[in-house]
């Protein structure tokens, strides 16, 4: 039971990282980034290619890949998303969805649909004795990194001027411009940061999950449910919901295996009936 709960938290670590990026992007740009799962997949695949073809190890990939994908995100925002934002939201919906299909197919063309192996970094290949049970060290590491990143983002948001501007621009973009802040200047780095988080989740996933072109597509559906449950645009909500959903689905998987796939969505429906704006969302954010 405790071990199941721990599995759930590790799964939740991925949900939290992805949901956080998705939420930051939605809050600041008003764009639902359907390509988020594809960037998670690219994160894992890039790590695989770097190791397989260039001998770049996991620790280097952990830094290089998120930064590189962040730069890709910045270029995408400048070239495309920025131009589509003033139009109907449908345009960015179609753009990011189309981008997902293109990225998936490009990877599929090169590497096929079978999963690629990615070894655990040797320093984390053992198990840790957590007192009540032993647990793979790598999984503990993933959970630690995710919690650390979420805390770091929280700190930046709450304690720094940059964070204050992001909070303000997320809540009331137009008013924030009228108060003398060039919101447009902040949009690009925030988008890049959200994509970098997806890339980081991808790198972390490579050694413990199947690295294949569809790994993001499978995960992102649940992440959307997580973001909706947490409250669209609420950063705290998406992180809290990420870990909660991880727990719930792991325990559900254990006790009611028949419902394992649907439990998250039943939960989402229940939350939406009870609180239409999500657990931590504000009504006016809709």
């Amino acid at each position, binding site marked *: 039971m405790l071990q199941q709960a721990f599995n759930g938290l590790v799964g939740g670590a991925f949900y939290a990282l992805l949901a956080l990026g998705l939420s930051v992007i939605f809050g600041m740009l008003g764009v639902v980034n359907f390509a988020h799962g594809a960037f998670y997949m690219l994160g894992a695949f890039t790590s695989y290619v770097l190791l397989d073809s260039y001998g770049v190890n996991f620790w280097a990939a952990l830094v290089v890949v998120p930064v590189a994908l962040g730069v890709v995100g910045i270029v995408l925002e400048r070239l495309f998303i920025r131009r589509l934002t003033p139009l109907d939201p449908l345009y960015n919906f179609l753009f990011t969805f189309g981008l997902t299909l293109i990225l998936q197919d490009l990877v599929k063309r090169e590497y096929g649909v079978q999963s690629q192996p990615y070894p655990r970094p040797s320093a984390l290949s053992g198990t840790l004795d957590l007192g009540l049970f032993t647990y793979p060290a790598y999984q503990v590491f993933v959970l630690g990194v995710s919690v650390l990143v979420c805390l770091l983002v929280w700190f930046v948001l709450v304690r720094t001027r940059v964070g204050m501007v992001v909070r*303000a621009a997320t809540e009331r973009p137009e008013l924030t411009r009228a*108060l*003398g802040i060039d919101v447009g200047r902040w949009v690009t780095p925030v988008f890049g940061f959200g994509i970098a988080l997806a890339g980081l989740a991808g790198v972390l996933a490579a050694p413990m999950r199947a690295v294949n072109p569809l790994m993001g597509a499978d995960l992102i559906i649940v992440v959307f449910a997580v973001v909706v449950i947490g409250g669209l645009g609420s950063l705290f909500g998406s992180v809290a919901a990420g870990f909660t959903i991880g727990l719930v689905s792991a325990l559900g998987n254990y006790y009611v295996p028949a419902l394992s796939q649907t439990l998250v969505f039943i939960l989402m429906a229940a939350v939406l009936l009870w609180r239409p704006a999500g657990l931590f969302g504000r009504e006016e954010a809709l």
Partner: protein
Amino acid sequence: MLRIDGLSAWYGEAQVLRDVSLEVAKGEIVTLVGRNGAGKTTLLRNVMGLHEGRSSGVVEFLGDDVSGHAAHRRAKRGLGYVPDDRGIYATLSVEENLTLPPAVGPDPWSLDKVYETFPRLRERRRSPGTKLSGGEQQMLALARVLRMGARLLLCDEPTEGLSPLIVQQIGSILRDVKSQGVTVLLIEQNVHFAQTVADRHYLLAEGRIVETLENSEVRARENELLEYLGI
């Protein structure tokens, strides 16, 4: 200070402002009165650079044509916007609400000066902005643009829905900042309040300025105006 010349604005196909021209001199308090839907808020949003539809005409602020400028550039030039819903951030504390806008203009208020003028805000400075009462939120919205050092305040109905006591307080704050050389363009449905703070009044109807009124005229015609405004 502010000169608007031949301003027209549309929402889609519907024209909401028709050839509006007006002027506000430095240190004046000028109100815009008119029924709901007359175009008052659209006019203020146009001056601030927030109008999203089509518009034409010239908005000149401190001698520069700012018509094509984005809202944040106009704010940095010294326009202080107080929106009709007060625009207090729920995710920012009272103090963060105050310090969010960059200090602009030659005479931004220090936080100490803000807290001396609005002691209540000092007591509540760690609370989330929207936990304040309506009156306190209105004070916060005014204090925010004063801390910024705005030279022309654009206030969209600051007295709406507030108790007479708070309305009086807002009046005395406006007179006070006027004496320090700040200019105010104010949307106001409360004609009685308007003539206690303002120097002049523009009457808007169907997107046009139909009359310019001095205080004495507003006093003499208060009942007629109230009836016209449907209050």
